[in-house]
């Protein structure tokens, strides 16, 4: 059972709201203060990715964010985009990043995944159990 559940229409303006809620719940749950910047960034990246996928596929369905604090702080960000689009985990090296032919969208996607992978030790990207879409699941330890 999620402690807090938030769904928002897939618009960039709402990603900030999701970040703020995600950090507020993390702080309340007892995530260490020095991890909160990383929590904020990771939730933002996961939501940005979901919004981008919904817009790419013309989906109006909301993006879902679930936060729970039973033992750990777990955040699920769920999109409803076709699965083959959602699992493109690509880490780019410096040469690829600087390559003139790499467009900004692909670069942003690669950098977003690098940030998720770099900041979240316990990270899973997998198909949702029900219907179409993927979920990004991130877990942080609780200090108390």
């Amino acid at each position: 059972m999620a402690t807090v559940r938030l769904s928002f229409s897939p618009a960039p303006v709402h990603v900030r709201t999701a970040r703020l809620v995600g950090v507020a719940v993390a702080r309340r749950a007892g995530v260490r203060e020095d991890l909160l910047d990383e929590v904020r960034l990771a939730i933002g990246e996961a939501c940005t990715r979901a919004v981008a996928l919904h817009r790419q596929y013309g989906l109006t369905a909301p993006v879902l964010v679930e936060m729970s604090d039973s033992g750990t702080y777990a955040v699920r960000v769920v999109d409803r985009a076709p699965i083959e689009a959602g699992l493109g985990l690509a880490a780019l090296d410096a040469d690829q990043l600087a390559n003139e032919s790499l467009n900004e969208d692909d670069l942003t996607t690669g950098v977003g995944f690098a940030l998720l992978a770099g900041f979240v030790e316990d990270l899973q990207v997998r198909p949702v159990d029900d219907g179409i879409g993927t979920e990004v699941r991130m877990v942080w330890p609780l200090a108390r």
Partner: protein
Amino acid sequence: MELSLATRTVGEHTVLEVGGEVDVYTAPRLRERLLELIDSGARHVVVDLGRVDFLDSTGLGVLVGALKRLRTADGTFALVCDKEPLLKIFRITALDQVFPLHPTVEAATGAGA
């Protein structure tokens, strides 16, 4: 905090001071301003991230776009950043190897950036 953008000139450098949050919502405004500067002839651009308190992949994409655009125009592009949380973002993404990063505007403009 909302995005803030202010431009000043230091020698032959155009310094864009960015403040607040650079994310998927605000990054298009940063992109627009950088394009305006480059289109109006700026060739040595320094982006000062000193008052940025949030930067995500979308913002990083915009900065890389400006770097590439200036490089093809025989210009230069450098960043000013001395905040550890932001520097960590550059290290994790390997973008610290792509951007010239300086701790101060003086270092960025004096270093011929």
